[in-house]
């Protein structure tokens, strides 16, 4: 079946990316809008945490587990810290850590994955086997061991989770990279004599962005869950830094009695995860050009 060319397109000049984004946004479904609004809200809160939060991050008040009131909108936590304040600072810390972790894991995973896809041969073999080895070790327990070795500072937390996560990013980027690396325009670049760095950065990367961005969104969310699971196993973020994963863990026992406190940070994580996924779904749908019926 031949593809049709829009008749009107020939005369039209290229529209800027901004206008494209605008038209795309206009057509975004409700779920995507919802996701975008929530994410923007979170970022807003995270960036302005210092100004929005009613109290200091670690400020302690006399009453622990205070009920919701005018003074403490969401009550206080086990140490008498304002819950709302902790949640707001939690947004800042958690999102910052998750962003840093995901960026690092993508920097490592994508560059190595695309390099493997481009070069194939022994480099690909070595990297792929190394990734196989890493993936065959249970990541949560391995992270636990590594954190015990290197100490659970925020830096090592970020680096370790990022490295263990990067194996998956490697696999994905290698897989999508392979599809692009066989394209003729990559061959053209190789025939021209371009170096690997240029080919990866200019020829391959721009063409594998959609699946990578989608994966970025998902991995970003999983960082929260990983931190929560690690803090469940006793290694996590240094107190008194507020982060949602640890906050869920600290208050988890209250769930058994139907107390809503642990729902707040867990809900914060869940809302963000769902929102990111909505946006990712829409993004994938919009960029894949995959048209199905209806």
């Amino acid at each position, binding site marked *: 079946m031949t593809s049709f060319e829009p008749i009107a397109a020939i005369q039209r000049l290229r529209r800027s990316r901004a206008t494209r984004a605008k038209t795309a946004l206009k057509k975004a479904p409700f779920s995507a809008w919802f996701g975008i609004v929530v994410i923007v809200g979170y970022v807003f809160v995270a960036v302005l945490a210092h100004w929005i939060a009613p109290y200091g991050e670690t400020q302690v008040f006399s009453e622990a587990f205070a009920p919701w009131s005018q003074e403490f909108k969401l009550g206080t936590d086990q*140490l008498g810290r304002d819950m709302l304040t902790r949640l707001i600072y939690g947004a800042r810390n958690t999102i910052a850590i998750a962003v840093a972790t995901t960026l690092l894991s993508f920097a490592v995973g994508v560059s190595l994955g695309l390099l493997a896809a481009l070069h194939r041969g022994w480099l690909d073999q070595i990297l792929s086997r190394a990734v196989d080895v890493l993936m065959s070790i249970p990541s949560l327990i391995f992270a636990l061991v590594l954190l015990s070795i290197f100490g659970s500072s925020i830096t090592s937390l970020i680096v370790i989770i990022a490295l263990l996560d990067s194996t998956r990013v490697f696999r994905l980027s290698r897989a999508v990279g392979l599809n692009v690396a066989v394209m003729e325009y990559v061959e053209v670049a190789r025939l021209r004599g371009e170096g690997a760095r240029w080919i990866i950065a200019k020829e391959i990367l721009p063409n594998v962005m959609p699946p990578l961005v989608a994966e970025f969104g998902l991995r970003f969310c999983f960082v929260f869950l990983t931190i929560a699971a690690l803090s469940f196993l006793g290694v996590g973020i240094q107190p008194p830094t507020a982060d949602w994963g640890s906050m869920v863990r600290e*208050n988890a026992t209250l769930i058994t009695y139907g107390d809503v406190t642990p729902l707040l940070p867990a809900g914060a994580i869940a809302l963000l995860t769902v929102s990111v996924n909505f946006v990712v779904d829409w993004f994938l749908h919009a960029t894949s050009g995959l048209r199905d019926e209806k």
Partner: protein
Amino acid sequence: MSESEYKLGIARSLIGGGNVSRRDFIHLGLAAGLTVAAADKLFVSTARAEPMQGGFAKLGMAHGATTDSIDPAGYPDTFTQTAFSGSLSNSLTEVDAKGNVQPDLAESFESSDGAKNWAFKLRKAATFHNGKTVTADDVVTSLQYHMGKDTKSAAKSLLESVAEIKADGPETVVFTLKSGNADFPYIMSDYHLVIMPAKDGKADWASGVRTGAFVIENFQPGVSAKLKRNPNYFKNGKPYLDEVEFIAITDLAARMAALSTGEVDYIGRADLKTLGMLKRNPKVEIVEVTGYGHYTLPMNVTMAPFDNPDVRMALKWAINRQEIVDKIFLGHATVANDNPIAPAIKFAKDPQPQHSFDPEKAKHYLKKAGMENLKVDLSVADAAFAGAVDAASLIRETAAQCGIDVNVVREAEDAYWDNVWLKKPWCASYWSGRATADWMFTQAFAADSSWNESFWKNPHFNELLVQARAETDEVKRAAMYAEMQQLTHDDGGSIVLVFNNFVSAQSKKLAHGEVAPNWENDGLKMAERWWIATA
């Protein structure tokens, strides 16, 4: 005795005899001036006060690991301690609910030569589970298991003071100590020092054959241990239960849930946060005793800035202990005063003044020390004690108000005792407490103790310690201990924050007498001492 008390007395004795109905009892209670509800409650608790035979109890323990074993060289946590020391085995002595030492496998004990020589006479009726009589040789080999160069026992240091143990005939064991110790029988109650049968001159721990109230039936390390009643137990009538199962439930929420759903009848270390909510469950009851255990923040006094007593004093005044009790332990603890001797222990005397949160005093001492911009690291992990990290967070806040910058360093929980304790200048620590002042001081404050966690070497304190140990005049002894407690309070390197309470929760199905405070789970002996009230 008032009339109402008299009537209640009658009622109680009637129930004890089993010949009074609930309705009759409530009538008598009403006559004695009680409300219906109160009388009913009294009926239930009184009825439950009389031990009954039979039944199966499932006990949820807060610990348990796959490396657990029945080897008494170990017993690292409440699972092994309660199941294998308290239920399966006996030591020579035990500590009762009042804190007094009582004979257990020994029938009696006496000292001579300024408490330097001790003779323990064994019970005649005592037999091992395999029917063999307990002899003095068994005792000697059992204790020697924890002594000597090659022992791996955690109790080794306990017996450091013992120069010689020998059997004097089949029923008497004689101890010769390196120096006099009036409290020696207390040491013999330690949960490691259980008596095992001797086999080829060595203590045979692996067979699981002991003297205790229960016989081991099935043990899956880290999961559960099932024990059944020892019909030939030397204590008359005990134990009451036919069978007990200890279940390792390390997760707090899981433990609480298991009790709520009735899947276990008892849980150790209940969750303080949700205790209030658990109390609303009509089938559940909370048991709380103030133990000997205490949480400390030892400062290494050989290192700057803690080598300066004024810095230590400033920190002692910079901590809001009441807040820690209220928030970390939710009131289920007692404020301590930098003195490790729990109020329930003999010779305990609260030193003055009570250290509390006082920024002015803290600043005063800081100024005196010339360190107005003090910055210190506090190394903590919840491995030290549950809530250590939170407590450190609170300390950081209060210290900040005194001009002290406390940097809380969260250490890895693994290997905390190996890497942090006795290594970092200021960290968190836990002592389960000792039954006597001497024992406590000797292990944690004596200059030559390897567990002197603050490396505190006060010459006067150490002199007093040796003198008091051998002193048999109770009054003089009391004075010496009071002075020592004042010294740790004023000069010592350990900040003793709080004494902890043992908070457990149980189904009302279970009943018991007064609960011993020396260890958790009724002095580890709950299986032997408790019974099922309503079948």
